């Protein structure tokens, strides 16, 4: 019974971090689908979400809700600048140049944050207290509920956006065939910018809601970004249910591995899964049919 309770506990916290990975994975997939770029600075958007919220809350003395909105807004602006200053000047870029440039931007963002706010890890207070709720012998924090709620909202929002708005449909058209999209009058450049906007917003939101649970600092983006990428790979780089499932599976496996095997190897487990998937099913776990090895 003791073990069962423990496992339930690991699964619950795993699902919570898994939701975060799913959100970050989604933000990867949004950019990838409209540009073919894997943004190695995606984790930095996540980090900015947390760090900027803490800054607005503690230094600017904004109320929590306003601080979150401010953080997401500022990160989105940084996403726009990112696209304008680093991605757009590269004409006919090779994947290699794009990898190097997004890595460069991630280092730059990390460096600026470190200079402005130092290296200390900081915590964001939980949105609605820390009184645990007992569910099936395991405890659930109110913050977990926030994470699940926000994740579901973002996913539903994305689905509505991509399937039922003109802009969303235009972005999907770009992901299928940029040239054809251009020919029917869709401004591909604007859609690329748009994808960076949404991606930065979703990424930073993930950073905000995880910050009360895991603390945040200038360098948390690397790991979070990589795990989000892992989730996106599991979902086959699609912006739908696959990525969400990928994130949840990754979070749960990681949490079980950390709890039952060794917490030191937690990150290694995630990367081991990433390698396995890349080697065996690079098209993602849930996609049928053949995909070229990109």
């Amino acid at each position: 019974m003791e073990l069962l309770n423990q496992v339930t506990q690991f699964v619950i916290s795993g699902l919570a971090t898994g939701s975060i990975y799913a959100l970050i994975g989604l933000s990867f997939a949004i950019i990838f689908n409209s540009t073919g770029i894997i943004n190695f600075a995606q984790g930095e958007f996540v980090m900015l979400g947390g760090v900027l919220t803490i800054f607005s809350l503690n230094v600017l003395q904004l109320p929590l809700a306003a601080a979150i909105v401010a953080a997401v807004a500022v990160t989105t602006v940084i996403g726009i600048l990112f696209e304008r200053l680093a991605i757009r000047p590269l004409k006919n870029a090779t994947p290699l140049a794009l990898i190097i440039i997004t890595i460069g931007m991630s280092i730059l963002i990390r460096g600026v944050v470190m200079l402005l706010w130092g290296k200390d890890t900081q915590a964001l207070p939980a949105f609605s207290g820390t009184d645990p709720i007992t569910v099936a012998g395991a405890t659930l924090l109110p913050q977990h509920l926030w994470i699940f709620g926000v994740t579901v909202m973002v996913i539903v929002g994305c689905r509505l956006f991509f399937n039922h708005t003109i802009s969303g449909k235009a972005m999907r058209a770009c992901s299928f065939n940029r040239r054809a999209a251009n020919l029917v009058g869709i401004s591909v450049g604007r859609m690329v910018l748009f994808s960076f906007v949404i991606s930065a917003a979703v990424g930073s939101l993930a950073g905000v809601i995880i910050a009360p649970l895991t603390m945040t600092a200038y360098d948390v983006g690397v790991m979070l970004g990589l795990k989000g990428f892992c989730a996106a790979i599991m979902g086959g780089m699609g912006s739908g249910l696959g990525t969400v499932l990928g994130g949840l599976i990754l979070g749960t496996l990681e949490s079980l591995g950390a709890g039952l095997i060794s917490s030191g190897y937690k990150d290694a487990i995630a990367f081991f899964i990433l390698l396995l998937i890349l080697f065996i099913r690079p098209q993602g776990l849930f996609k049928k049919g053949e995909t070229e090895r990109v």
Partner: protein
Amino acid sequence: MRSDRIKFLAFALVVLLLPLPLSGGYLTNVLIFVGINGVLALGLNLLLGYAGQISLGQAAFFGLGAYGSGVLTTQFGFNPWVAMVVVALCVALFAFALGFPVLRLKGHYLAMATLGVGVIANIAFNETVDLTGGPSGLSGIPNLAIGTLTFDSDLKNYYLVWCFALGMILLSLNLVNSRFGRALRAIHDSEVAARVMGVNARLMKVQVFTLSAVMSAIMGSLYCHVMTFISPTSFGFSFSVEILTMVVIGGLGSVYGSILGALLLTLLPEMLRTFQDYDIIVYGLLLVTMTIYMPGGLVEGIPALFRLIMPTKKGSEVGNA
């Protein structure tokens, strides 16, 4: 071909004479790291600049070399030279086996897979505390020695490291001008076309991956005997990125470019020491601006800049006279 040989001899002469006016001080120590980083960058450049395959896990092989030698000599009493050979062979086998599944991937996916290997290796260095000492590091690693000559001063280590480095530079120069090197460049331009021409692209990619891994591992062994202390932080993701930066800034597909990139990026933090943490921003800025404005790196950028400045300079000189 002949001018290549003269170029190499001139380079070797500079390397051999350089420490004499420095008389084994702090700068000699920095130049040791230029040698080590130079070979690491060179190894990655063979893979990235010539064959067009990215790796974000070079620090892992460097770390495997360092920890392999460190652990074998301190825990199991191996002779350092024997340990170095054993470790190099093991890394070669490991990289060869790893290369087949990893190098089937392309572009971003290859970058992520190699990065994953790097992160897992770094976690292993941290977690196998019994062997490696974990986060607090491994100390008491012996210096290398030949007979009664022990490499225990900066100057001796400088010549030790650079002997290896010159050897590997010579090897690389020969390699890139050989049939193998031309095949690698063909793979870079178009893997399909290379295959059609009868190049076994898959095997060649794995071979060059293995070669770059072994070069890194040997430098790792040297590093651990020079430093006599190692800890996991030296072999993390950020160091892999640093090596990548050296290659890109020096110039993709240029042997001397890698050494130049290593020289610049090893000296830079020393020069920026007064600004402490600013070097991370400088790294980022360099990577971004160089990729956008100088995609050929310094080896192409400097002559281009020279041509750009020279005419105007001449003009102003004439004006003055």
